[in-house]
């Protein structure tokens, strides 16, 4: 099998896998980064979203051979440091967004990418960005609130959650 050298969460990782292996399964089975989730395998649920050079990308639809030198960031690599969470992660914990939690890595990765592009998103911006991420438990209202709270946290504000 071919070898691929990937940049994952700032580290160089070499994997020996079939060329058509989706990045999702490379992360989960080979690199043991299981925070990225398998939900549908056809790009319809968003549970597998990671960042490729900062762009939210469905890893179940991205074969390993197409990743190249792009920087892969997974949910495990999103936090600023081991002790300091990303504002989206902070907001998610503060507002108790999750129920089962299975979709939330994908939600958080999509939300983090949105806030990087658009630090003060409107409801419409949030809906547009988050539309590809299903939450079977139905936490959409808290996700919306979480993104707004994260925007405040990222701006260094201490305002109460909306």
């Amino acid at each position: 099998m071919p070898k691929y050298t990937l940049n994952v969460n700032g580290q160089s990782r070499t994997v020996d896998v079939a060329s058509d292996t989706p990045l999702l399964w490379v992360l989960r089975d080979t690199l043991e980064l299981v925070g990225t989730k398998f939900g549908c395998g056809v790009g319809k649920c968003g549970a597998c979203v990671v960042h490729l050079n900062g762009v939210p990308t469905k890893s179940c639809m991205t074969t390993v051979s197409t990743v190249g030198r792009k920087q892969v960031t997974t949910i495990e690599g999103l936090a600023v440091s081991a002790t300091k969470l990303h504002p989206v992660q902070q907001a998610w914990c503060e507002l108790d967004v999750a129920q089962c939690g299975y979709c939330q890595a994908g939600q958080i990765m999509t939300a983090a990418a949105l806030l990087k592009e658009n630090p003060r998103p409107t409801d419409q911006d949030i809906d547009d960005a988050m539309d590809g991420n299903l939450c079977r438990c139905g936490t959409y209202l808290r996700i919306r609130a979480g993104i707004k709270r994260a925007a405040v946290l990222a701006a260094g504000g201490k305002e109460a959650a909306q």
Partner: protein
Amino acid sequence: MKTLTLDRPVNRRDFLKLTGLAGGGLALAFYIKSGPKAEAAEGAASGDFAPNAFIRISPNGAVTIVSKQPEMGQGVKTSLPMIIAEQLEVPWKEITIEQGDFDEKLYGNQGAGGSQSTPRNYDTFHLLGATARTMLVNAAAQTWGVPASECRAENASVLHPSGKSLKYGQLVAKASTLPVPAKTEVKLKDPKDFKLLGKRIPQYDSVKIATGQPLFGIDVKVPGMLYAVYEKCPAFGGKAVSANLDQIKALPGVKDAFIIAGNGKVKELNSGVAIVADSTWAALSARKKLKVTWDEGKVVNESWDTFLAEAREKAAQPGQKTLRKDGDPDAALASAAKKVEAEYVYPFISHANLEPQNTTAHWKDGVMEVWSPLQIPSAGAGLVTKILGIPADKIKIHISRAGGGFGRRISADYLIEAAAIAHKVNAPVKLTWTREDDLRHDHMRPGGIHFLKGGVDANGKIVAWKNHFFTFGEGGSPGSGGAFNGDIFPGGGIANYQADQTMFDTGWPMGPWRAPGSCIFGWVLHSFLDELAHAAGRDPLEVRLELLGQQETKATGGAPKKGGGGGYNVARMRNVLKFAAEKAGWGKKKFEKGQGAGIAFYFSHLGYFAQVAEVTVSKEGQLKVDRFVTGYDVGAQVVNLSGAENQIEGSVVDAMSVMMYQELNIERGRVTQSNFDNYPLLRTTEAPTKIECYNLPTNHPTTGMGEPAIPPVAPAICNAIFAATGKRVRQFPLSRTDLRWS
């Protein structure tokens, strides 16, 4: 309803044991083991204070609470330990929570279903925490030589008015030598002094979830583990006759491939072909090349459309069973001033847990060790014994967090598949279902067809109601949630009432779907009731209050039954209905054309829920729920307000998702849908703009939140759609109804 018996002091070798009793009762009994291991809770180190299987305190002060129920997003890993922490007087942030393995001898019932975790454990968990706190107080009192009554516990310490204080960790050695006090010697906190219960507490695992730490069944990795997929017959219950196994075994990464005969039960071990490989992708890739000859069996003669047509033919005939008959419905309909007839149809649906079914199993040295996201671990163990012949004491089950339950993981079919595969492989094996496997082999919520007739007299009073319900059975009895009950409101509230039921028996697998039966009967009953209210020209709230009547407890149906059904407290229902209407400002708002409000209520799973929806329907037929108000009575004490409200918010979205889109069509004994492209779920853009939750506490036992918010959601919204557009939704999913208006 619940009894607690702890009437004699016991020594430190005794364990408190929870025992589930028939009928939902609870007993706190004794569990006496000998030997040093018996003294400690699972994982307790020598020197720890472990007064029962759920609590242990180390000499360094670390407090650990074991959560025995499976966590699937219902929040029980947080809420039940909160009860112990409250009584134990330990700050929440100082507590470590561990998921207990399956061991019902140690923990009592570990099933999570029927919204039973809270009512089943609430009183007992208070007592467990308070008992441990009492022992720590007694230890401090003895250390100081003062009466225990002068001491109090606070902030993981025991304090004395003299200023003396000892931290729990310092008291562990002494407390471990003391007898476990009798219940009569244990004082529970006054609810007005609660510091934790009723507050909004984020889930214990929220940081792990937000940072992607391994938590779920699908995340399990065991050294040397292989990866399996399992191809079953597209037609329910079909058998694998042969397959191109030699070709599959030669493919890259494939370690083995074999046929499993199954046990002939469509909800247990299905026949199929297992492919075991060195990665999930290798197994999935090999599966694309798999060719199987199936024996599909008789199920190919069974299609939804055929059953629907047959139901329509037989609608006017008497049902196979009359579930309830009061008065003379036919005569009352004949003489009614106004009559309404309607057909309500809803399809089979899937649970669609976002985490596909999976289980890791390892067969080694005569022991089957299993890691699985389960709701009822005992069901999994039972199948392993029944089908593989492995005795209970040789089965070890680790309960994984489940990426959604909703009743699907009450079944353990995926666990027995993994165990049956592992039984033939000399390595641990993780079985992962694809989304397609999940949608095509769910234990579905049964569909149904209701033929309703109602009559209203000249004064606008509902005087007649007839329902011929067509349901679906498996092996001679209705599927879970497919049995109607004549006691459900408005049964008993209308003088001339009849509920008939006819069942089509099938080979289709069905199972409990969040608030079984109630989840869909609520829509049918409260929609048709709304039709009658409008026919009578009356306010839908007023009609409901009239039908509920003035008596305190329903005369029929007996005591409330776990999981819904049975009688219910009419005063509670009436009060919560008025409460929700008041919070929503029912009847006070003026709506433009295209906007409107709807109301519904339901009693299920011991919870009383009333809901009001306000909607806008655009001229093009686009629905938006602008505001959704829930009033609820789940007894005296909401445990975790954040978790409780999350369950309500999620229930609103879940029920809307079912209403809008969900449908499994069954043709020739197989599901025609395959993945989220043709089985869509509600997306964030379609979620309500605003969901409001209002608790109405009452002096009744605390009950669960996982299910009872579901049933009134769809009828409240559909009734609002009617108010907005004059269009009545009588068929699910809603995408089949044209809501355009001009």
